[in-house]
């Protein structure tokens, strides 16, 4: 039995076992590799992270001695007995009472998530909109004050530097919410590609914000007790400024679970007070504190992409089924010509959802096989879906094999398991 943590991986290195497991820097899941595919490590490292490209290629090992970053709620999570993991360089709770119970609580009542590790980048100035428009593929000009949109931060090749939420605070002021592990990379990229071109400033503002997500059918009722703001009337993907339990906050009706709910941004010093207030008030309604494990299974059931899995700097919006966030008519932006070219020439692979046909579970990185056993790609995310009680996943499949009902096969250790393409999302909340 090898528990899924990096300690085990490291000790197995030093004992020279032939097989080992690693926790990827951007993943909650251990990945199995044979040591023969890795260069030898002779030094004892405090922390080893692996970057495993989804396509075949050399594995890159990064060994660091850096301390993990902590959110303002780190000691609170530990006091609650959370199991902690390294997630993209952050020491984060992966589960409290268990992924299944947390997942079900969010679907049927409410879940409270510390997502303070997420990065915030602010763009301010007369040409803030132009800067945002230049680096992202969605049309930020369509946003009104207090509105947010899902978008992609683009390379010049039309692939993803990251995915993000763009919030329009006001004319000349945008708040971008990006992935935790990409925050510094994104900030430097936006700054460097726009330097000297736009009259605006870009600020890496992650340390000024804590973020809590309260998600689920009871989220509105619980949050309403703490604010006088008209949040019941707030539309999906809109936000407002106001007090939550007398703390200044940005309250957005957004989320990453497939449920109704809110993401609340505020100054880190209020983290414990707000967390405890929402937790105490929600308890009688069935609210549970939730970790990144449930956050991942919830977003997977809801068919949402995760950077480093469904999308990265090798995938485009067309391939990722995210054409709806790419507005070719909005004017020039980074990657536009490459995206135009791919739109005209057509794509060969597309992201699709699948359901396993038996009890086997496909996991991140498992190979996709066509009829003659050839590998045609890999599972980008695979897991049991706790609410649907099915084993599901997403993968890039050849376009000709992407229609719902198509049978595909997935290599699971020494076996080949059968799966069926199904429409995304797997789960859609009743409205």
């Amino acid at each position, binding site marked *: *039995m090898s*528990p*899924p943590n990096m300690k085990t991986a490291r000790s197995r290195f030093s004992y020279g076992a032939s097989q080992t497991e690693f926790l990827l820097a951007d993943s909650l899941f*251990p990945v199995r590799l044979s040591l023969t595919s890795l260069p030898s490590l002779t030094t004892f490292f405090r922390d080893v992270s692996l970057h495993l490209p989804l396509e075949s290629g050399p594995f890159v090992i990064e060994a660091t001695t850096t301390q993990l970053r902590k959110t303002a709620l780190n000691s609170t999570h530990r006091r609650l007995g959370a199991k902690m993991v390294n997630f993209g360089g952050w020491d984060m709770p992966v*589960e409290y009472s*268990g*992924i299944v119970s947390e997942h079900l609580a969010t679907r049927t009542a409410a879940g409270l998530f510390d997502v303070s590790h997420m990065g915030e980048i602010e763009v301010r100035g007369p040409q803030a909109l132009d800067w945002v428009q230049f680096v992202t593929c969605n049309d930020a000009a369509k946003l009104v004050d207090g509105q947010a949109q899902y978008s992609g931060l683009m390379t010049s090749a039309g692939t993803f530097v990251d995915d993000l939420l763009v919030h329009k605070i006001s004319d000349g002021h945008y708040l971008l919410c990006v992935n935790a592990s990409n925050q510094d990379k994104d900030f430097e990229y936006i700054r460097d590609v726009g330097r000297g071109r736009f009259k605006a400033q870009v600020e890496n503002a992650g340390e000024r914000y804590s973020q809590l997500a309260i998600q689920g059918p009871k989220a509105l009722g619980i949050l309403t007790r703490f604010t006088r703001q008209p949040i019941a009337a707030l539309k999906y993907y809109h936000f407002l400024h106001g007090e939550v339990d007398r703390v200044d906050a940005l309250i957005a009706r957004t989320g990453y679970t497939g449920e109704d709910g809110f993401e609340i941004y505020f100054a880190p010093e209020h983290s414990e007070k707000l967390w405890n207030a929402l937790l105490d008030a929600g308890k009688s309604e069935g609210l549970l504190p939730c970790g990144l494990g449930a956050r991942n299974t919830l977003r997977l059931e809801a068919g949402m992409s995760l950077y480093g899995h469904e999308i990265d700097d090798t995938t485009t919006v067309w391939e990722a089924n995210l054409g709806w966030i790419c507005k070719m008519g909005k004017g020039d932006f980074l990657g536009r010509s490459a995206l135009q070219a791919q739109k005209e020439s057509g794509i060969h692979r597309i992201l699709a959802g699948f359901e396993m046909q038996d009890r086997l579970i496909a996991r991140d990185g498992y190979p996709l096989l066509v009829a003659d056993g050839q590998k045609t790609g890999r599972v980008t995310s695979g897991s049991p879906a706790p609410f649907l009680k099915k084993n599901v996943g997403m993968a890039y499949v050849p376009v000709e094999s992407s229609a719902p009902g198509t049978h595909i096969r997935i290599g699971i250790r020494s076996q080949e398991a059968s799966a069926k393409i199904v429409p995304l999302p797997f789960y859609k909340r009743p409205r």
Partner: protein
Amino acid sequence: MSYPSDYRYTQEHEWVRLEGNVATVGITDYAQHELGDVVYVDLPKVGAKLNAGESLGTVESVKAVSDIYAPLSGEVAEVNSALSETPETINKDPHGKAWLIKLKLANSSEVSKLMDAAAYEAFLAGKQKEASA
């Protein structure tokens, strides 16, 4: 949860209960806690011959898949088939109802390589110390 004093343990977090020449094998409470909610168990067939240290099957939780290694060499005499329908038993009663297989031992002298409960608890304490270092 305490670790039964009449069991033997491995560094891979399997436990063994010996009755004559037959070893009942399971995973420890520490192991089930590390894994989280168990959703699937893959066990060998009766009659399969296993060498100590060889993978005997896998336990999968929502977030992870983990190999289970044979603590001792022998032939599989019985498997706990109830676990295929109720894998969550591994979380609820890891040292009891959730035994995985019974092995007819090939070489009972291997038993001396396993840890007793006190040694295993000391091993876990060492891991926890390392984790918080």
